[in-house]
C-alpha cells in the first residue's frame, strides 16, 4: 500500500452496456475482447442498482468499481481491490460533474456522442497513465472548454434544445447565487 493511488479504467457506457467512451490504464485487459467481457459483466452486475442520486460501489474479480448513472449513461471508475474507495469516488465525481458542465446540463447518450471530442479530452485531463491528474470538475471542464472557445458555435447555430439547456443553466446559476 505504499504505492500511489491508481486508476485501472474509466468507462462511460450507455443503458444497454455499449461503449460511449472508455479508457483503460492497466494491462490486465490485454485485448479488446477482454475489455468487452469486463464491461459486460460490470454492466450486468450494476444495471439493476439505483445509482442515480449517490454513487454506488461494487466489488468483483478483485476490482473495486464505483459507478453513477444519469439518464441513459453509466459512469464508472475501477481501481485495485485494496484501493481507498473514497479516492475512486472522488475521481468518478470529478468526471461525472465535468461532463455535466461540458454538456451544459443535458447529459445523455445522444449529447455525449455529439460532443465525443469533449468527453475524450475530459478523460485525458482526469487521469494520465493511471495516475490521477485532476479531480476538480470545474478545473477539468475549464481545461477542456478553454480549447474550444473559438470553435464554439455562435448562438444561432445551436439547436433549440441546446439553447434551452444553456438558458436553464444560466437560470440555475443565477438562482444559486
Amino acid at each position, binding site marked *: 500500500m505504499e504505492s500511489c493511488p491508481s486508476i485501472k479504467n474509466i468507462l462511460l457506457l450507455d443503458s444497454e452496456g455499449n461503449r460511449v467512451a472508455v479508457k483503460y490504464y492497466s494491462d490486465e485487459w490485454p485485448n479488446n475482447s477482454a475489455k468487452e467481457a469486463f464491461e459486460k459483466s460490470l454492466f450486468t452486475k450494476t444495471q439493476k442498482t439505483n445509482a442515480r442520486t449517490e454513487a454506488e460501489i461494487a*466489488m468483483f474479480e478483485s476490482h473495486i468499481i464505483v459507478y453513477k448513472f444519469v439518464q441513459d449513461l453509466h459512469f464508472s471508475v475501477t481501481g485495485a481491490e485494496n484501493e*481507498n474507495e473514497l479516492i475512486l469516488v472522488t475521481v468518478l465525481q470529478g468526471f461525472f460533474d465535468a461532463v455535466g458542465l461540458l454538456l451544459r446540463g443535458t447529459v445523455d447518450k445522444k449529447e455525449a456522442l455529439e460532443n465525443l471530442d469533449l468527453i475524450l479530452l475530459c478523460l485525458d485531463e482526469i487521469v494520465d497513465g493511471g495516475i490521477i491528474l485532476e479531480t476538480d470538475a470545474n478545473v477539468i471542464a475549464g481545461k477542456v472548454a478553454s480549447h*474550444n472557445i473559438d470553435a464554439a458555435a455562435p448562438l444561432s447555430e445551436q439547436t433549440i434544445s441546446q439553447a434551452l439547456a444553456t438558458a436553464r443553466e444560466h437560470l440555475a446559476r443565477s438562482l444559486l447565487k
Partner: protein
Amino acid sequence: MAQPLVKKDDDRDDEADYSPFLGIEKGAVLQEARVFNDPQLDPRRCSQVITKLLYLLNQGETFTKVEATEVFFAVTKLFQSKDIGLRRMVYVMIKELSPSADEVIIVTSSLMKDMTSKTDMYRANAIRVLCRITDGTLLTQIERYLKQAIVDKNPVVASAALVSGIHLLQTNPEIVKRWSNEVQEAVQSRAALVQFHALALLHQIRQNDRLAVNKLVSSLTKGSVRSPLAQCLLIRYTSQVIRESANNNQAGDRPFYDFLEGCLRHKAEMVIFEAARAITELNGVTSRELTPAITVLQLFLSSSKPVLRFAAVRTLNKVAMTHPMAVTNCNIDMESLISDQNRSIATLAITTLLKTGNESSVDRLMKQITNFMSDIADEFKIVVVEAIRSLCLKFPLKHRSLMNFLSNILREEGGFEYKKAIVDSIVILIRDIPEAKESGLLHLCEFIEDCEFTYLSTQILHFLGIEGPKTSDPSKYIRYIYNRVHLENATVRAGAVSTLAKFGAMVDTLKPRVFVLLRRCLFDNDDEVRDRATLYLNTLGGDGAVVETGEDVKEFLFGSLDIPLVNLENSLKNYEPSEEAFDINSVPKEVKTQPLAEKKAPGKKPTGLGAPPAGPPSTVDAYEKLLLSIPEFANFGKLFKSSAPVELTEAETEYAVNVVKHIFDGHVVFQYNCTNTIPEQLLENVTVIVDASEAEEFAEVASKPLRSLPYDSPGQTFVAFEKPEGVPAIGKFSNMLRFIVKEVDPSTGEAEDDGVEDEYQLEELEVVAADYMLKVGVSNFRNAWETMDADCERVDEYGLGPRESLAEAVNAVINLLGMQPCEGTEVVPNNSRSHTCLLSGVYIGNVKVLVRLQFGLDGPKDVAMKLAVRSEDEAVSDAIHEIVASG
C-alpha cells in the same frame, strides 16, 4: 408482410438509436483523413475527422500498421494549424497511435517547440505526449526543459512534468533520479495537485533509501500538506515507516501514531478513511490505538453515501477477523445495514456480525439473515454460509438453529457452488460436533431425495456409508439410499449400491435386508451397478447365511485407496493383458511433489468432501526400469523410494555431479549423475570412491563405473551398499570422483591416447530418516486416524526454540519427516498463533504412519510442538519421535 417491418426499422433509426456515428466505417474515415493534407486546413473539419478516428479506436477497431503510419503522418501535418482546439485533439491522437521509434522523430521537433511555447496548455500537453512516446536518447535532450517544467509556476505544466516523471522512472530511472532537487522544491508547491504528484515522485525516487523516506515523512507530518490526495499518500508512507521501524524497537510508543490519529480529524473524508484504515492495519495494533479509528468508521456506517458505508464495513470486517471485540460497539449500526440496498454492504455487514456476535445474539441474527438470503446472488450466499459454518464451530451449543438454517437454504434454489458450500459445511459440522450428527445426516438424506447434482449425490452417499452405520438407528437411512437405486442416473445408483453394502457390512441386523436390496440391483440395466452389486454380494457372503463380516472385507470397503490415482492410471495403461493378473502392489505409492504452479494457487483448504490430492505422474517407474537393467542390482527386490537429486558440486564447476538415493529393503544405491563441462577433456573409467566410515551400518557391495564421459553429455555411475533389512539406517558418506582424464583436441574432437589419473572432491551426502518415508496421502485423515490402533499412538512435546515464523517451523518439520501433508494443513494462515498439521506416509517395511502436529507460539518467536504419531507398528511410532528428537 414486408411493409410493417421496414416501417419499424425506420422508426427506430429516427428515435432511439440516433448517433452521429451511425453507419461509420473505417475505410471511409481513413479516406476522410486526407483533409489533413489540404494546403488550406479547415480546423473544424479536421477535429471532426480526428474524433471519428478516436471513436473507431475507442470501439475496439484496430488499424493495420500501414493505416496507422498513414494516419500518423497525416496528423503531424496538423501542427501547422494555430487552432488550439485542433492541437488538443492532435495530442490525444498521437498518444492513441503510440508511434514507433522512427516515426517519433517526425513529431519531436514540433513537440519540442510546443514544450517551450508561451501557452501553458501547449507546454503541459507537449510534455505529456513527448514523455509518453519518447525513448532514452531523446530524453537526455529534453531533460533540461523537463526540470524547468517541474518548477513551472503554472500548476498544470508542473503536474504534467511530474506525472511524466513517475512514468519515466520505470524505464529511465537514472535520468529521473537526477531531478530530485526540483521535485523536492515542487513538494513545497502551493498548488494542491502539484504537491501530490511531487510527493509521489519523490517517494518513488527514494523508496529504497529507508533513511531518506523516514526524513521525508518526519518533515512532512510536521508541516501542512494541502491536498487530500497528498495527505493520503503521506499516510501510506507513514505506515510504511512505522512498519519498518517496528522491527527495530519493540518498546515505547509507536512513532507517528499521533499523526495518524490527527488525520482522523481531517476535513476530507478520503483522508479520514485512509488514516482509519492505516491504524487498523498496524502490526500488533492495541485496542487503545484502535478505538479512535473504529469510532470514525462507525460514523461512516450510517452515512447516506453507499461508498462510505461500503468502505467502513469492509474495513471493520477485516478488523473483526483479528479483533472481534473492538468491533462489537458497531453491532447496532451493522444490523441496520443488513437491509442495505447495496448487497455487497449487506453481505459484509452480516459476515462481520457473524464474526463478532455472541452466543445470545445468534438466534436473532439467523432470523434476519433468513429474510435476506432470498434476494442476494449466489456468490454472496457462499460467503454467508462459510461465516455460519465458522460461527457454529465457535458456538457448538447453537448447532440446532444453525443446522436448521443450513438445511432450509439447502432446500431453496441455488447453483452448484452454493449447494456444495452448504453440503461441505454440514459435513464439517457433523464431523466436528457429535450432537449435530444425526440431524445433519437426515438433512443430507432429504437433500439427495431431490438433488440435481450427481457429484453432490455421490459424495453424500459415500459420506452416509461411513457415518450412517455408526448412528443409533442405521435402518432409517436405508430407505433414502435405496430410493436412489430407483430414481437416479447410473453414477448415483452405483454409489447407492456401495453405500448399501457398507451398511450391510457394519450392521449385522440389517444384513439380510441389505442382501435383498442388493439382489434386486443385479437386474439393473447398467454394467457398473450390476458389477458392484455382484461384487458386494460375494464379499459379504450373500448366500443367505448371516456371517460375521471379516476384517479383510471391512478393509476393502472402508480402507482408503492409498495409491495416487494418477500412478494407478499409469500402471493400468502400461499393463498388458496376459496370464498374469494386474498386481495393485506394483503401483508406485510415492506422491510426487506438486509442481510449482499448483503450489502458488491460493492456499485454499480442500474441506468437507474434498477429494484427495492427485499427484502428477512420477518418475519412479523410470528409475526402477533403469536399476533393474543393471544386473548387479537386479536382485535387490522392489524399489521403495528414490530421493530427489542432491547436488554434490557447486554451480559452474568443472564437473557437475548430483546424486539420487535409491532405497531398497536391504540395500541403498547411490546414482551419481555426472556432467563434464570442459570441452578439452574426455573422462574415462569414472567412479565415485565412497567413504562410509561415518555410516556404520552400511557396507559397500557393488560399484558400477562409467566407461566414458565426453563433454556435455551426462552419464551415471552407481555405488550400492548393503544395510540391515528393513532398518532405517542413517549415515554420512564422503565422496571422491576418480577418473582418467584425456586431453581432447577441440578442432578435431579426437582424444589423445594417454590419460592421467585424477581425483575431484565432492561434497558429503547423507542418508536421513526422511529417505525411508514415502509421501503417501490419505483421502480422509480423520477416518484413517481413528481406524489406526490407539495403542500404537505415541505423543510427546517438543520445544523448537526461536523460529522465523510459525509457517517456517511447520515447513521444517514436514521436510524433516518427509511426509505428505493432508487436507491442505501445510498452509499456515497469516498471523495465526497456533496451527495443526496432518501428515501421512508409508515407512520402510510398508508401515502406514499418520502424524498429527500441533504448533503453538510460545512468547514472541519460540515455537512449541506437540507430536502425536499413530502407525501400524509401535516401533515405527517411536522411530518417528526419534527423528524429531534428533532433528
